[in-house]
């Protein structure tokens, strides 16, 4: 069963450790101190936002009918066998046309620092056990890497309902 990065909304403290870990995992050095000492500027592909009192990370959902794949004029955005949607490692190169940025409903595709290609969660950060860097970095278990079925559907609904209450209370 394909695994996804699932979000346990009531656990996020907004520490941004996932963002840092994501950036580090996409650095050449591959570790925090090394990347800093090299002067690298890797960018994160997961984003912690706040809505009212609710903080939560948001990253690519690797949509089943991914609009970014349809939108890509270069043919770079594609789906890998494990379900990962990515614009790297495929047959074609990203050309930074931002069509994917325009259609991603989660706003989790962005440009690189130089504006030369689109960056998104590519799951190129997984360790030997296959767990993504953001999940490993999360100190509270707000991020979980699991098959959707493994992750109790009921729990998700509960969590979301609570989150929703908070959100609606704040607008």
């Amino acid at each position: 069963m394909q695994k996804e990065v699932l979000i346990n909304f009531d656990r996020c403290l907004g520490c941004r450790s996932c963002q840092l870990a994501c950036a580090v995992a996409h650095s050449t050095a591959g570790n925090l101190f090394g990347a800093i000492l090299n002067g690298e500027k890797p960018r994160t592909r997961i984003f912690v936002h706040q809505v009212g009192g609710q903080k939560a990370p948001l990253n690519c959902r690797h949509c089943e009918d991914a609009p970014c794949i349809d939108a890509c004029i270069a043919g770079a955005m594609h789906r890998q066998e494990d379900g990962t949607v990515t614009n790297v490692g495929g047959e074609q190169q990203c050309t930074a046309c931002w069509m994917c940025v325009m259609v991603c409903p989660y706003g989790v595709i962005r440009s690189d620092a130089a504006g030369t290609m689109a960056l998104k969660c590519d799951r190129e950060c997984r360790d030997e056990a296959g767990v993504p860097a953001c999940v490993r970095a999360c100190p509270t278990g707000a991020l979980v890497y699991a098959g959707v079925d493994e992750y109790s559907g009921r729990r998700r609904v509960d969590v979301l309902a609570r989150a929703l209450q908070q959100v609606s209370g704040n607008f």
Partner: protein
Amino acid sequence: MRFVIAGNSAAGVAAVETLRRLGGRQNHITVVTDEPGETYSRCMLPDLLAGKKTEYSIRLRPPDFYRKLGVELLGGVAAVALQPGEKKLLLQDGRELAYDRLLVATGARPVLPEVPGAEARGVFTLRTLTDARLIASLAPRVSRAVIAGGGLVGLKTAYALKTAGLDGVTVVVTSPRLLIRQLDEEAAALVERELRSAGINFIYNARIKAFVTGSGGDLAGVELEDGRELPAGLAVVAKGVRPNDTLVGEAGGETGKGIVVDRYLRTTLENVYAAGDCIQVTDRVTAQKVSSALWTLAFEQGRYAAANMLGLARPYPAPLTRLNSARFGTVDVISVGRLEGPEVMARYDPLRFTYRRLVFDGERLAGFILAGKVDGAGVYTALVKSGRPAWTYRRQLLEGRAGSVALSNFLTFH
């Protein structure tokens, strides 16, 4: 089942992939196209002109794409007639292709102005790889070019020719400003400033009266209606496109702003489907019937058409037909949905060098423009597309805090 697909660009490729993905390998698939060679990304032809890309790097799919999928490709041969009764497609070279289901994905062709000299050597449109090759081979031998049209293709072409090293590049625009169909005045001004700083000239409120030829029939210049003459060795006409709907129309199928299709992307001819720039669609926001004419839409229509051809009955939802993304130098521009509406709010964000314009129709975000930095644009697009109440997010949207809006949406609708 025999599937024939006329057209080898976005809709055709998406259809082929979907037919194989959902339908397995037992069906016979033939793709016929009047263009020679492999499928490529049409939107990237300006990059080819600019020298930023090669023909190799604008390929849409790898060379062995069709072979791997077990699809027969007939290249360089146009489909000239359709016999829906016999379920046959007639080709230019006399061949007849029998089909069980046909997908017409013949795209669109550029509009050529009806002015004298339009047929001169050195006057081009930029729609196909062949066009791009011709322009690219002439460009190094001329120093000045005129672009007719201030739309996206015109400006991208102008920017590409400038990048390729042409001295003088002038864009002749009929309207009082550029990108009149995509942007408002402020956003257009941002783009214009960027293009001017790249060395491109603009002439507004002007029409071309004639293309002037010199000795030997080569283009020498462009004459405007106000009498001005612009010397130029190269001209590119970018005045929009028309759907290639004659194949269906001449066979008795209904056409309007393109081939008329139902929600399953079926034409009025039995067993004939259509997708891409050649069809007419109903805009999701304005409910008007318009030509489809967008790469993204062609791709998704290709997927839907293929599913329907396999009998899966996937209704195609009314699309957003105004969905534009482009970049000019450091200015990225995205414009989606309506440009005007009952409630418009706009703001330039000097910290992020970004202009944002929101168009609301009641609770609903009907359209938006982002110019400068466009990260998070998809969140706005999703709001326009879904029609969900968005008025409550107006401040975040105007300030570019798309992420928190996305999170709200995510929390609310998942």
